[in-house]
């Protein structure tokens, strides 16, 4: 087996036939010619390798050694390169490809955005574009600090951003600002109203004037705790009402669903389509580019050219597999429909009464009519019905007038 160094430097394979082939080898040593892989075929014939440059010198030893020397083959990288020299395309195209690869790695062909949940990718991409970072832009011009500062200025929802450039890939890591929790502002003029009708069981007014007592019925929108605090001795005060009102409430929620549904059954027929994306341009290798077939699922796979995590070229192959299907109508059983509706109704009720609410009693009625399943939930619950609402201008005016009258 040829060594890598021999392959790179190149070597010649020679055959020597004579009465004493060993004389040739000794002559080579005298001449300072290195040789290796000496293989004797028989007592008069040997095969051996030597460097390309030494091949002629060895052949010149024919008379001195009394052997007939034949150059069998020249091998190695120099010979290969010499052959390629005539085949212009074979070395020119890889060279062009290498240059294109090197040049294209100086441009941005992929932008990865991580860490955003509320701020969309498009918003960040637009902000980046304003800062000069977009697909196809020259990456050596980038200043990570400058881009980061501009990004944070343009998107106040972001509290932190990091811009890293890896060849042709730009990685943007962001952290979003947390929403400021709703603060209790004492100076705000607010009442506590009923968000749900019910019979009041208890009322706890931490601030404000309670207008209902236990056992009274409040309908939706009634002011339960007023922010206007009248005083016998002093002026009327307007405060931010605060408190909780626990009440018995009743719910009747109805849910309807069709008993029939459609299911997809793949017919087995598939259609493969390919497209090539070069930057923002797309070359479709099929007709009717924008029209997708009816009754088929299109599975789109994209294969980008490049080394994952290192660099990305703006070339990608798009493979679209269209799997055609037929729909068949199936029916739910009554048990299935009932279970689905019950689950949906219970979820809706739980959302309505809130985390601290409790269900005292509940009943679900179920029937099937005209191909539809209908379920009705009736429940009695206990929950906090208090909700903050701003005071109307009339209320504030009235309270202010009273205040002025008392002052006079």
């Amino acid at each position, binding site marked *: 087996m040829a060594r890598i160094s021999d392959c790179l430097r190149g070597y010649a394979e020679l055959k020597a036939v004579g009465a004493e082939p*060993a004389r040739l080898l000794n002559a080579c*040593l005298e001449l300072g010619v*290195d*040789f290796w*892989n000496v293989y004797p075929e028989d007592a008069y014939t040997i095969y051996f390798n030597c460097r390309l440059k030494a091949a002629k010198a060895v052949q010149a030893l024919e008379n001195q050694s009394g052997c007939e020397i034949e150059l069998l083959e020249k091998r190695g990288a120099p010979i290969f390169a010499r052959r390629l020299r005539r085949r212009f395309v074979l070395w020119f195209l890889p060279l062009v490809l290498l240059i294109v690869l090197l040049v294209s790695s100086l441009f941005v062909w992929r932008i990865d955005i991580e860490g955003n949940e509320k701020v969309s990718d498009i918003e960040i991409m637009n902000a980046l574009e304003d800062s000069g970072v977009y697909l196809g832009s020259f990456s050596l011009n980038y200043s990570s600090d400058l881009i980061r500062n501009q990004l944070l200025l343009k998107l106040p929802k972001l509290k932190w951003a990091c811009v890293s450039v890896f060849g042709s890939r730009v990685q943007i890591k962001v952290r979003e600002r947390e929403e400021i929790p709703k603060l209790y502002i004492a100076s705000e003029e607010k009442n506590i109203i009923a968000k749900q009708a019910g019979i009041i069981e208890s009322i706890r007014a931490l601030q404000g004037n309670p207008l209902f007592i236990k056992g009274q019925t409040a309908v939706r929108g009634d002011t339960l705790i007023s922010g206007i605090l009248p005083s016998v001795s002093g002026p009327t005060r307007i405060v931010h009402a605060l408190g909780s009102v626990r009440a018995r409430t009743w719910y009747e929620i109805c849910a309807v669903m069709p008993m029939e549904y459609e299911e997809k059954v793949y017919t087995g027929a598939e259609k493969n389509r390919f497209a090539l994306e070069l930057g923002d341009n797309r070359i479709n290798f099929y007709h009717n580019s924008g029209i997708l077939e009816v009754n088929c699922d299109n599975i789109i796979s994209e294969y980008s050219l490049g080394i994952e995590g290192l660099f990305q070229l703006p070339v990608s192959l798009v493979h679209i597999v269209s799997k055609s299907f037929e729909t068949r109508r199936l029916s739910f059983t009554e048990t299935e429909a009932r279970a689905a509706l019950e689950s949906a109704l219970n979820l809706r009720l739980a959302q309505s009464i809130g985390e601290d609410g409790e269900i005292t009693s509940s009943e679900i009625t179920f029937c099937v009519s005209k191909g539809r399943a209908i379920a009705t939930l009736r429940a009695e619950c206990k929950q906090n019905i208090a909700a903050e609402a701003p005071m109307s201008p009339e209320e504030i005016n009235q309270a202010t007038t009273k205040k002025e009258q008392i002052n006079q």
Partner: protein
Amino acid sequence: MKNKNHRRSIGEMLGAPADAIKGVPRVSISGFTQVLLENHAGLVGYCRDSVEVRARNGFLRVRGQDLELAAMTKTEIIIRGIIVSVEQG
């Protein structure tokens, strides 16, 4: 010849190891599949079963199977194959 014997006796007198004396052939066998012959004076004969090398005071013969001259320089020969014996003649 006299000179060579003198050199050897002086080396023996000084207690120097044999391979410290210039030109003494040295044979190293590695794993029964490779023999390194140093300080040889040329190849005498070569076939698949034996390789005969001229040394300073005689000949060295390596016997074995599928012997191959892996590399050869003015002073060193590497012989590969199944080594059976190395003889001095």
